[in-house]
């Protein structure tokens, strides 16, 4: 498992310190698909960098720790995030946002496969055999083997993303981090890739961490969810429970702002905008946009409390969240 404890991740910029992730703690369990959700700028991608142990200037882990617990040579070992890069790809791998630019544009896919693998036993296979293994693996994932001889730009966006998934899972890492893996892809393709991910996870029995802003995606495939807002975790719960009875008004508003097919109820967006991470407000960061907020909310940082077993929420009014009906509008901030 991966333990995230009191983590602060800050960017140093020209304008000052951007507190992208503030005091975040949670656990990632073995064998689950954990979803992390939130709006753009909520710190979810930064947190992913932290969890992957890829923290470089101007980003810095200013507080807290991230540890990975793995089994190696029959022993359980705890590895701090500063050492993660030694285990990259072997124990922990990463699927970036679907984008044209993450593969080397001037090198064929196959050579990029070759470049990645470090583990001695895989290396020892030799090029010929390795090639066979890769081809086999692609066939397993129902991908055409020809892609190996292509350049990235020759593949469609969906195909590229599936190749990256294959790349990231080829050596069966225990942890796979996927950062918005299907954003900007068409829904049909998105469904294909997500299905592929789920199947892989079932097959490998490893841990997937999925970052997405799309609540629908989370609903479809994640087991447990972490909701982030303005650099902080506001709610953690098993996915089904979260959708059924959210205990943070942000989660609730988020779910309710989404129109559903076949459902004609009037929906409203959340008014206003998230606070600046350069100088976040003193109290609850969502207070300015919250229909439940009172003066206390604006002054006191709500702690993340376990509101029911396995369900955590950081809201002083968490008990009222489902009780008080949502008001229309919020159009003006």
């Amino acid at each position: 498992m991966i333990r995230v404890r009191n983590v602060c991740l800050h960017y140093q910029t020209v304008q000052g310190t951007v507190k992208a992730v503030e005091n975040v703690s949670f656990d990632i369990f073995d064998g689950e698909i954990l979803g992390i959700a939130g709006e753009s700028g909520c710190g979810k991608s930064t947190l992913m960098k932290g969890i992957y142990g890829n923290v470089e200037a101007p980003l810095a882990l200013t507080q807290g720790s991230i540890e990975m617990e793995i089994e190696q040579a029959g022993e359980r070992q705890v590895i701090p995030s500063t050492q993660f890069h030694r285990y990259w790809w072997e124990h922990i791998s990463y699927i970036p946002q679907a984008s044209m630019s993450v593969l080397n544009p001037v090198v064929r896919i196959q050579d990029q496969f070759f470049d990645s693998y470090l583990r001695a036993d895989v290396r020892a296979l030799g090029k010929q055999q390795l090639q066979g293994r890769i081809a086999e693996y692609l066939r397993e994932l129902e991908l055409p083997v020809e892609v190996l001889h292509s350049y990235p730009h020759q593949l469609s966006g969906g195909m590229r993303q599936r190749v990256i998934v294959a790349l990231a899972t080829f050596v069966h890492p225990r942890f796979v981090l996927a950062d918005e893996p299907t954003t900007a892809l068409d829904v049909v393709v998105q469904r294909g890739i997500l299905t592929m991910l789920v199947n892989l996870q079932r097959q490998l029995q490893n841990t997937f961490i999925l970052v997405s802003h799309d609540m629908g995606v989370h609903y479809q495939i994640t087991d447990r969810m972490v909701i982030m807002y303005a650099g902080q975790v506001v709610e953690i719960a098993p996915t089904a429970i979260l959708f059924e009875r959210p205990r943070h008004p942000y989660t609730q508003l988020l779910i309710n702002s989404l129109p559903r097919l076949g459902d004609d109820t009037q929906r409203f967006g959340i008014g206003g905008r998230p606070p600046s991470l350069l100088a976040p407000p003193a109290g609850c960061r969502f207070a300015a946009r919250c229909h439940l907020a009172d003066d206390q909310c604006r002054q006191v940082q709500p702690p993340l409390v376990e509101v029911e077993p396995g369900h955590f929420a950081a809201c002083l009014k968490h008990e009222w969240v489902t009780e008080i009906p949502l008001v229309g509008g919020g159009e003006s901030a």
Partner: protein
Amino acid sequence: MAVVRFLAVRLMVYVLVVWIGVTIIFFVPRFVPGNPVEVMMGKLLSQGTTMDPVLVESMRKTLTELFGLEGTLWEQYSSFLSRVILTQDFGPSLSYYPTPVSMLVARALPWSLGLLLTALLTSWLLGNLIGLLAGYYNKKNLSKLIETGAMIVYPIPYYILALLLVILFAYIWPIFPFVFQVSGTPGSWPWIQSVAYNSFLPLVSIVAVSLGWWIISMKAMVIDTKEEDFVQYARSRGVSDHKIMLGYVARTAILPQITVLALSIGGVFGGALITEILFGYPGVGSLIYKAILGSDYNLMLGTISISIVAVATATLVLDLIYPFIDPRIRYK
């Protein structure tokens, strides 16, 4: 079919560029005052020899005829064009009459190519290597030092650098020759040694300046490329550092440098005019200069056209081969 169409259009542009360029070189000298007959007359008469006006007149007439400068400009132009197109012959040099232009060019070209290609390739390879290292390890002090050095040398005009080098290494600290004087039989070892020894300062003056440029541009490109997603992703895939540097960063960053290299090779045929003049180097640059001083129309056309054709050809070839250099272009 599309390929054929593309080629046809591209070739047409090529021919147009060359033709217009050559036409400019044909007409500009003829429209500014000065003409080769008078240069020749001046040369023959300036020594104070008897200026028998009758002789002057008859000589002028003969020379005008010999130099093919009779008739209207249009007639001269069309006969020039047909001669060049049909026989690729630029005719005799006027100031070295009747020596053919082709012979003069053939003698000067190896020198310019030798000097400039060497300078270009050396500085390109060295500059890109240094630029790559300096850009890849751009946080290191040495890297900053190199960049500062390159920034100081690069903007200095190469002829100023040439002057300084001559002052420093041929005069104050005379380890290099002041005089371009090749000895030994061409092709022999002492000759090669002497060529190299004599070419060293001109070479350095060109290399130093262009080296600065390659370092600066490569470094900038490497720093940009280093931030690209695919490099970052390669890093997070655990790809080894030198592999990222060579296979990912260098491989991509070098592409625009290849473009500029190709264009520079085109420029090589024009010679490094002022360097050659300052060092008395027997290349095309010196020849162009002499042609201009002597109002030698044919020699100007012969020498400058090479340069025009070379630059145009370089761009053409570049357009044609670029898809093979950069796989992204091919299937777009």
